[in-house]
């Protein structure tokens, strides 16, 4: 009864690791190892399977190598609008039938789009494996494209934009930041896009996008859960292998020129009640040594109540109601973000100065041992808890395979974070958190009835 058998969990050094990396995991720490099998179908579809019979669940994720970075001028928001079209029917699946069937059979599903990828996932009781494969294959093969569906989802997406951007405080600030921070169009616009561009999207755009990007050779399928691998692979082949391959999509130029001077913008926000400051520093692509060091830096500077910014600006000298931030992970140039919501009556310039003073202190003296430990333990807990469900494992494997061509990153990611030293953290702070590499957006509540801009 008390045996501590773990289906996936073992001492790292004992695990039958696919990777040969041996990390210095302190005694007592147990990591989670995911054994996966990789198969490539004749049409180029990359398939990763993880057999795990610990719960009667299957989860499938298909990540397409397309995001808003692939959009062209005048069609911002299109990759996400297209994602919505994927739920409006295919040759053998009616409009709305996909999610009707998933939810009415005890499942869960969704699709999400960001700059770097579009991903679709379904989790179901394990006896519904065929249903999941059928639904995903049918829309990859034969999406129904018509104006009625497009107009319908254009409206839904525009409501999504209103809900997340236009009807909430600081919604505009995020858009202004992204437009100011980046020079390359790939990241210079938001994934949700502009109302104008959403209105311009045509049926022809949808058809061309589908043919170019929704090809089996431009996708990764990950299946995790309660199945027999050989049997599941046969079913995957039966459903997907006859979908024709397409020419490879055009490569995206992700070159981002070096920033030479600080950039600033002001936003007057009629929906905000408190001023807000958003600060971003351009950094590096994800899954690089500097990126992992920036994650540790962010934990020390702005992660949780023990962080330097929380202690200085919320507790010691209260200036803000809230301060937080993160190192954004991107396939292209990432960024290090900090957002502070000010108390009433506090000057934005004073808050900025206080933030920079903490950054300078960190650049000069580096971080303490406990801060390094905090970052590593916090990352570990987060990562390991994220492995609980088949769905999150499937999603993670697909996305990292599309991003970095590395399904095994799910087994090596924590080693990469563990490798970060205090010196690395101090070095990346000095390299990226500089005044010339900084972009600042200041949002001020717009007084009722005011029509003129608030002066800086």
């Amino acid at each position, binding site marked *: *009864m008390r*045996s*501590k*058998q773990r*289906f996936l*969990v073992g001492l790292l050094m004992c695990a039958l690791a696919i990777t040969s990396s041996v990390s210095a995991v302190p005694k*007592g*720490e147990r990591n989670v190892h995911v*054994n996966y099998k990789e198969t490539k179908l004749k049409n180029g579809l990359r398939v990763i399977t993880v*057999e*795990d*019979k*610990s*719960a*009667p669940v299957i989860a499938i994720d298909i990540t397409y190598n397309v995001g808003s970075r692939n959009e062209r001028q005048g069609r911002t928001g299109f990759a996400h609008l297209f994602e919505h079209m994927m739920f409006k029917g295919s040759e053998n*699946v*009616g*409009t*709305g039938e996909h*999610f*009707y*069937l998933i939810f*009415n*059979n*005890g*499942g869960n599903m969704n699709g999400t789009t960001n700059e770097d990828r579009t991903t679709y996932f379904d989790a*179901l*009781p*394990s*006896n519904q494996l*065929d*249903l999941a494969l*059928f*639904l995903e294959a049918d829309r990859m093969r034969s999406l129904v494209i018509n104006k009625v569906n497009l107009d*319908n989802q254009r409206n*839904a*997406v*525009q*409501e999504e934009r*209103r*809900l997340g951007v236009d*009807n909430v*405080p600081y919604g505009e600030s995020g858009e202004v930041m992204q437009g100011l921070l980046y020079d390359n169009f790939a990241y210079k616009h938001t994934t949700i896009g502009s109302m104008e561009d959403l209105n311009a999207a045509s049926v022809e755009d949808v058809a061309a996008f589908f043919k170019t990007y929704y090809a089996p050779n431009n996708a990764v399928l990950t299946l995790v859960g309660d199945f027999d691998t050989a049997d599941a692979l046969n079913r995957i082949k039966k459903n997907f292998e006859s979908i024709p391959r397409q020419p490879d999509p055009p490569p995206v130029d992700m070159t981002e020129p070096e920033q030479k001077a600080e950039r600033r913008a002001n936003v007057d926000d*009629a*929906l905000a*009640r*408190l001023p807000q400051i958003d600060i971003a520093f351009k950094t590096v692509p994800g899954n690089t040594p500097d990126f992992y060091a920036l994650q540790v830096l962010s934990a020390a500077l702005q992660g949780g*109540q*023990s962080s330097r910014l*929380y*202690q200085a600006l919320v507790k010691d000298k*209260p200036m803000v*109601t*809230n301060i937080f931030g993160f190192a954004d992970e991107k396939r292209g140039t990432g960024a290090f973000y900090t957002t502070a919501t000010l*108390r009433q009556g506090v000057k934005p310039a004073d808050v900025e100065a206080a933030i920079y003073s903490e950054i300078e202190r960190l650049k000069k003296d580096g971080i303490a041992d406990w801060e390094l430990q*905090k970052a590593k*333990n916090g990352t*570990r*807990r987060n990562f*390991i808890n994220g492995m609980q469900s088949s769905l999150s494992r499937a999603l993670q494997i697909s996305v990292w395979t599309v991003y970095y061509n590395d399904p095994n990153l799910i087994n090596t990611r924590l080693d990469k974070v563990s490798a970060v030293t205090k010196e690395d953290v101090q070095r990346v702070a000095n390299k990226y958190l500089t005044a010339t590499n900084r972009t600042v957006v200041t949002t001020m509540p717009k007084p009722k009835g005011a029509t003129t801009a608030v002066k800086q």
Partner: protein
Amino acid sequence: MRNLTEFRNRFFAALAIVALASSMSLAQQRGGAPVQTGQSVKGADLKGRAPVSREILKVKLPKAEEATLSNGLRVVLLESHRVPTFTMQMVVMSGGLSDPPNHHGLASFTATLLREGTQTRSSKEIAEQIDTLGTTLGAAAGVSSFTSTITASGLVENFDQTLDIFADVIRNPKFPQDEVEKFKQRQLQQLQFLRSNPQFLAAERFQRAIYGNHPAGLVVAPAESIKSTTSADLAKFHSTYYRPNNAMLTIVGDVTLKEIMPKLEKAFGDWQKGDVPETKIPAAPEPGATRIQLIDRPGSVQTVLQLGNLGIERTNQDYFAVLVMNQILGGGPAARLFMNLREDKSYTYGAYSNFGGSKFRGTVVSSSDVRTEVTEGAMHEFMYELKRIRDEKVTPVELENAKRALVGSFALSLEQPNALLQNIVTQKLYNMPADYWDTYPQMVSAITADDVQRAAQKYVNLSNLQIVAVGDASKARDVLAKYGTVEVYDAEGQPVTDSKKATP
């Protein structure tokens, strides 16, 4: 590939799969029930060609173990060895409902301030020690909750150190005066921030509409209550209610009872019992007539709509009928509200209904955020759906789908140990039978179309429906006036008279 079968977790070893279809029969079941070829619902076209297994997997839920410390503190453990982490939660059986009548929020402030200093640790030391372990530590009590909860979640190798801090903040908080003052300032600023959020404004007005002066009429503690709070108030609430005979320690994760019991005894065994006054649960007031309340939020491009009624207590015998009714009305994207307002009309990004209840009656509420221009159409569809769920029996297919959704999702919950533990806590808090969650699928399955209609007619009552809208009053007011007299408020909750009303 390593064959993982032998590593099957013992919790799931007894998994009962009833009549799990073989691959052959699965293939033959394309087009099987409950979806029939060519059948459609509003918002969806059902071709019925996708292969659906007719069987609902019956899953055996893992059982919790229980123990008692020497001072009587109950311990509930749900072992889960999926990953090497744990979550521990102290449930104190007193919350906002134990607040003094003129001090709403005291239970909430007490919980929040536990980590702002103990006899031996400063606020900053607690933050640093907790974060260094990679642990999360939170504490909360609702304005109208009957419990306060303190939750720590961490890596299993840091269990002992986490337990030490967890016990310290629960047993020895000091509520230092300077931290209390800082907290009050933060809370007051936070209220300003909340008032810029349209969903908050809608929820605040809706709760007030349903509950009046009942504690559930509040969403957050009022400013006066924050301002008047002292360190002594907090210490008194803590010493009165935070007692082992008024609490339950629940744990889920990669630990065993045998290994943790001595540790728990050391951490909590000498925690002193106390005479805890009984908290009277105030009944929700009887519903008044329909009111339409509009909060003017200049600059809004959407109208937030909430329409609802008083519902049921968690233990009400109508629970399963309401559960199925809600599932069909608006329990998810496959439900009527979403299919109609989003998929068919594309008025919104989402439309749902919800219900809840504790030891007093909860609400049954339908809601959506729609662009201002279609407020009229959205209101029309909401009223149509609320009337329809009352006036017409749900179809056999809808009923069957709702049951499959509710029962089928138990399989997925086996991968969410925290949710399983919360279910066990619910069973204990409401003194439900020990086999409550085991019989849950049968209870759901027993619901008929008549039961659903009875529940709708009882709890979706159009004559006392409370309607709340947040948006641009200059555009939404006339639309809402078609349903009755519209009361207009500003974001502070103050009535806006016509003479005072700002011109758009």
